[in-house]
């Protein structure tokens, strides 16, 4: 998913009515937000953070110093680790780490749903959904060892952050869990 499409999706989920203008820059197609007042903003997580503030949903950035740092850490993880890899072989170690991180947590920042969950969900979507499609359900996909990450996955979906996929997949996922 191109970064600009992802940002549009985020706008929608955050309930921002009037859409912003985006362009892409450089080799990595880094998104740029054009603003009327003030300089433009560059970078996916920078813009996403900005949008959250625009929507007055600062709680999505964490409320304590610890939460705020954790949220930004996972946003960085998304753009450096998840986006840096393209094949499913490369992504597996990341999923494994994420799974053990989530062992004692509901969301990435603990008990509160944050922007980190949203962007990581977007970033991992293509891997997890593909994986799921191919193997017809995660019961055969390392099932129990990946339980936590799937639980997390379901929680995010429950927050109804839409990704353009067929509903059947999500539903299937939901039931199997």
């Amino acid at each position, binding site marked *: 998913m191109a970064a600009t499409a992802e940002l549009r999706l985020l706008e929608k989920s955050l309930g921002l009515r009037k859409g912003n203008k985006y362009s892409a820059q450089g080799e990595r197609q880094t998104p740029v937000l054009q603003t009327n007042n003030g300089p433009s*903003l560059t970078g996916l997580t*920078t813009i996403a*953070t900005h949008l959250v503030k625009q929507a007055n949903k600062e709680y999505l950035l964490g409320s304590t*110093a610890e939460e705020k740092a954790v949220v930004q850490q996972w946003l960085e993880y998304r753009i450096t680790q998840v986006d*840096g890899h393209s094949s499913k072989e490369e992504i597996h*170690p990341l999923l494994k780490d994420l799974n053990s991180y989530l062992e004692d947590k509901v969301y990435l920042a603990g008990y509160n749903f944050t922007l980190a969950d949203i962007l990581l969900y977007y970033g991992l979507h293509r891997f997890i959904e593909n994986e799921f499609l191919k193997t017809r359900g995660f019961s055969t996909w390392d099932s129990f060892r990946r339980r936590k990450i799937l639980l997390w996955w379901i929680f995010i979906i429950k927050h109804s952050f839409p990704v353009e996929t067929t509903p059947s997949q999500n539903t299937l996922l939901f039931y199997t869990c």
Partner: protein
Amino acid sequence: MRLFVCEGAPGSLPVLAAAGRARDRAELLISTVGSEECVVPFLTRPKVPVLQLDSGNYLFSSSAICRYFFLLSGWEQDDLTNQWLEWEATELQPALSAALYCLVVQGKKGEHVLGPLRRALTHIDYSLSRQNCPFLAGDTESLADIVLWGALYPLLQDPTYLPEELGALHSWFQTLSTQEPCRRAAETVLKQQGVLALRPYLQKQPQPQSHPPEGRAVSNEPEEEELATLSEEEIAMAVTAWEKGLGSLPPLRPPQNPVLPVAGERNVLITSALPYVNNVPHLGNIIGCVLSADVFARYSRLRQWNTLYLCGTDEYGTATETKAMEEGLTPQEICDKYHRIHADIYCWFNISFDTFGRTTTAQQTKITQDIFQRLLTRGFVLQDTVEQLRCEQCARFLADRFVEGVCPFCGYEEARGDQCDKCGKLINAIELKKPQCKVCRSCPVVKSSQHLFLDLPKLEKRLEEWLGKTLPGSDWTPNARFIIRSWLRDGLKPRCITRDLKWGTPVPLEGFEDKVFYVWFDATIGYLSITANYTDQWERWWKNPDQVDLYQFMAKDNVPFHGLVFPCSALGAEDNYTLVRHLIATEYLNYEDGKFSKSRGVGVFGDMAQDTGIPADIWRFYLLYIRPEGQDSAFSWTDMLIKNNSELLNNLGNFINRAGMFVSKFFGGCVPKMVLTPDDQRLLAHISLELQHYHQLLEKVRIRDALRSILTISRHGNQYIQVNEPWKRIKGSEADRQRAGTVTGLAVNIAALLSVMLQPYMPTVSATIQAQLQLPLQACGILLTNFICTLPTGHHIGTVSPLFQKLENDQIESLRQRFGGGQAKVSPKPAVVETVTTAGPQHIQMLMDEVTKQGNVVRELKAQKADKNQVAAEVAKLLDLKKQLALAEGKPIETPKGKKKK
């Protein structure tokens, strides 16, 4: 909170700086862990630095940790900071880790390191200057500044990598670097070792992957050397200099005997550490002093500086007495015998001493006693009773080197009586635990004896004053400065200068008739006495500090005696002695993976190098190529073979030979007319630039680095010939033939320049090239800072023949076995040397065609999404072809990834 850091991990810098700012607000424990320790339970791969929070949660990203510290101190997040941090993570870090890896692990320099980073640095500079703020996100220093400063500091603290023209970046960086928390973080992480402090950590990390655009993965083309951009002015200057030709050479200095300082000239006095007479020097000794000093002496003469290079054998001491006993000779006979051996070895290595003397001479006695008397009358000599180890079995006091035992500081088992090889601390022999006489292995007893001491504490102030004047702006190597600094920091102590021995310089004092001076007091005076034996006007060199530039070469273990003890003696004697202005100390050279060891028969020793069948110049080249400059290095047979075959045979030899062959074959041995195109002029300027770089490096005695410049010029030359194909054009139209002439003429002039630049390193090869090209005598003896035309149109060259021979695997393997340790097993058959014709242009063209063809095969397979193994097999073929091509063209071979040698 607990912060986990690791020695040399670059991420620690910003984190410690940020923690330093917030220190008062948070209770912080810092633990150091190994780089392979998995601190974070949920991450598979080890990651440092890591902050464990009181909640038990972990922050494993340096930026997030910094952010947390800032948040704790009440800072509010803002878009601009977020943007900088995102840019740091996605744009700066990949470029930076590649640059650091390149510099620290692969040892590359200059543009290789800076090139990939330039865009990012310019971006910071531009942002700073455009917004007209001193800091990245406003008027005060903030999170973004700390994170970026911390990331950049390891590299930018070396001014080489902080481009002058980026003024805003410059002042931003300096401002931050001087702030207390940053300064402290930098000290903790880099430990004043600069970027090399990161080495142990980075070495263990996987090589950072740059993300090449799709399709690039197939291409393994050796990267074109990044060419600096040249201004029109630089090009014009290079052309003018070139055109002046031989006319711009000054007259050669007439040879003098003896060489004496001349007022108004640059007078360079060069010494290399005096080798101890009872040992045959090994390759490490040779590169450490005599060979390094020789390169500099030859370079100094090429610059027409008035140069005297001297050395000699250090002959007094117990070791000589013992050796004499062993061999049933008198000490004098031993010295005569080994002095000869040394002289022969250095002669074989072509070391250009003006004089190679010895310390057992009447002059030595006279000068040492004079200095001693002066020190005595000025009150710098103390007398004291010394407890000393005496071996009753051998009936003598044991010199420090003849006692071994357990180091009182670090517990090392084989510490010597004067110094521990492991921790490097100086030891008083009677402090050794479990001492043993090295000769008979019995336990010595402590006896007392009267001795004289040099009162170093009383001289310390003068020494510091002198160092304060000498060190700034001088070329003392960093290790030498460091050693002297640490000695001064610990405070100087009186040092005993006498010994109960017979074989030494007698002590001219009543009650000391049966004692001699301790070798380290009088060995450094050897330089003076050797000069005195060379010329009775020796004082014009040694009591003339204003006119004489003294360079002293040695391995680092000799630094205290040259940089501290002798200067103290000389300053105390108050006789206007010339003191060392540039102290050049090397690190150690290892042999394969261990140390040279005479007793175990491991390693190559000076006298054996001759029996290998490998010419002295090849030895010189390889030893200088791996000179332990800045860090230890290791001699490796395989590496020597590779360097000989790739750098000498295929790069340098191939270029010079082709240039000469074209002149003989196509132009009847007569340099053709040259009509320079703009491209040729640009090449002239590039070569001038590289030549200037060579000069800059050698003036700073960076011998190993300067050798790279020679090879770079020869690579430029090879590419020039390859691109212009004179062998084809010679068969073409009139214009083509003229072009072939220009290319050939320019190439053969580059070859002539190389022969002069090569002279300090490979004197015999240099002379051979100069004879083949019939280079005018004047041009052979002087190296200007500009590339000039020394072989003008119409010049007749001589007969051209190949310069280097290929080293074969079998040959090297048998040498490795022969010198690898244990007793020599392999019959010392002379090395088989096969003459190889260097790769011809046709051969190269053929390889190029094949590379193109194979490249297409691979691309097609990939496009068809063919089976992986099939693709891999074809790629392997392609890589192999490219390697052959690189070899044939004399370009450096890329070492395959993942096969790094420790």
